[in-house]
């Protein structure tokens, strides 16, 4: 009798990503640079974006125009986005100069790059739902780019309702899933060894 799909999935998961790999309490000694903190800083900023975004979602897109608390929460959202991109870009450049796709880690790089693109799309729709002059201006200007390649036929940047739904539901879902997959891939493969590291350097200290 063939193995159940459920048990096959569980066995594969346990083989590739046991809890010791998912949440290890040690790391290779070469993990000793400030560049390593920018991944977790990016995740933390994303957490703050989601937290402040949920509060804004409960109060509606126009709340922050008229409430000092709303302005503060909107500011948290705004600055978290700025921090998120600063951390993510540093993380991305760091991984590039580490050639972090080495050793079967190509998919990890690719999911990270896709997460970067999804973040830009999510932030862009955020700018469109500010319900202020900036969103008027951005929507009028941006429509030409999307229309020029046919995307505007469905992705209507001047449609506040559509942009709001994409911003608070669809795009965060996509970004969240990609981010989880990316982090799981990092944990499965481990942190990439230094360029020019050799087995003799590795095993000599084991």
């Amino acid at each position: 009798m063939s193995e159940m799909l459920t048990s096959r999935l569980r066995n594969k998961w346990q083989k590739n990503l046991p809890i010791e790999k998912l949440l290890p309490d040690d790391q290779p000694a070469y993990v000793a640079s400030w560049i390593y903190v920018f991944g977790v800083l990016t995740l933390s900023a994303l957490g703050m974006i989601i937290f402040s975004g949920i509060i804004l979602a409960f109060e509606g897109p126009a709340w922050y125009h008229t409430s000092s608390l709303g302005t503060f929460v909107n500011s948290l959202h705004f600055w978290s986005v700025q921090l998120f991109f600063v951390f993510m870009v540093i993380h991305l450049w760091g991984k590039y100069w580490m050639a972090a796709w080495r050793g079967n880690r190509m998919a990890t790089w690719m999911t990270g790059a896709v997460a970067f693109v999804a973040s830009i799309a999510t932030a862009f729709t955020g700018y469109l739902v500010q319900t202020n002059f900036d969103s008027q201006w951005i929507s009028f200007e941006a429509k030409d780019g999307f229309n020029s390649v046919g995307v505007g036929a469905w992705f209507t940047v001047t449609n506040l309702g559509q942009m709001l739904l994409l911003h608070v539901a669809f795009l965060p879902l996509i970004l969240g899933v990609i981010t989880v997959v990316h982090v799981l891939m990092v944990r499965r493969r481990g942190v990439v060894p230094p360029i020019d590291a050799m087995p003799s350097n590795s095993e000599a200290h084991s």
Partner: protein
Amino acid sequence: MSTAEKEIFDAAPWKGKTKKYDFVREGVIAVVVVTVLAIFFSLLFGSPDEPPLTFKGWAVSNSDNFYATAVQELAGTSGTATYGAPYNENGDGLNIGPLWMQRWAGVTRPIDTVNDFVIAPLSTQIMSSDIANALAAWKAASDSQKTTWATSYDDAITKVEGKISDVAAGDYGPVPVLAQGLTEMAKGGALDAALLSQGGFFQTDNTKQILFFGDGSYLDDAGTAANLQGGTWGMMNETGRYPGQAWLWLYSFWYQIPPFNNEESKPIGANADAYIMGLMGLLTLGLILIPVIPGIKTLPMRIPIHRGIWSQYYKSQGIKRRKK
């Protein structure tokens, strides 16, 4: 060690020296750092929030421009009326060589500037007999008569460079009264809601308002004043002294250089939006595929920034820098 052997070594679990590493502690510290920074910037700087423009503001501050734009909407000469897909079939749209992608899906967001921007909003109002008669005359006229009235009035306004009081007398039918009626409606603040609702109750689509705004000079002037124009890196700017979408710097960059920044330059400058979209699509694909692009994927090995990142490791193992 061959490239294949190196790849196998890089993929294998690390067998060398390890050290204790507390991920949870690192995560907690990161959350605290981000929270403190976000609160600090929020309290110190707040966030940008310039109030939206209104049709009332436009009609009051630049009545002639609003009036002339209303006439263009009736004449079918405004930017929206001649745009093409996805709003109407009155323009070819942009292309990349033989690819006219803008037209592929056809008209998916139909906009009839005559009715949607002027006649329908005006019809929602309690109106004077002058406007009621003008609306009745417009609705009763043939399409060719409407076009003749509106285009001759539009031409007359263009001839005096938009100064309505200087327009020569002529046979413009009900167009001047309709334009004046819409201007008064806008000045009273009723047009914003009428354009949005279009007779309905629940509405969340601001397309008609935004497009009408863009047909005149009011929105454009405000964008210039706020330093938001695309030709001056405006795409990555924010209103006030706030950081904008700096991550769009590369997208914005192309609009600053020839041939993209010259609308007269064919075919690229005249279709800059489409070409830049296509170019950024390719570059985005390139970013994702960096691990397989020759030259780009090996650059990190040749430029020794990694020597700084793993300096402790290289020092402890006595690994010298590669020879060029």
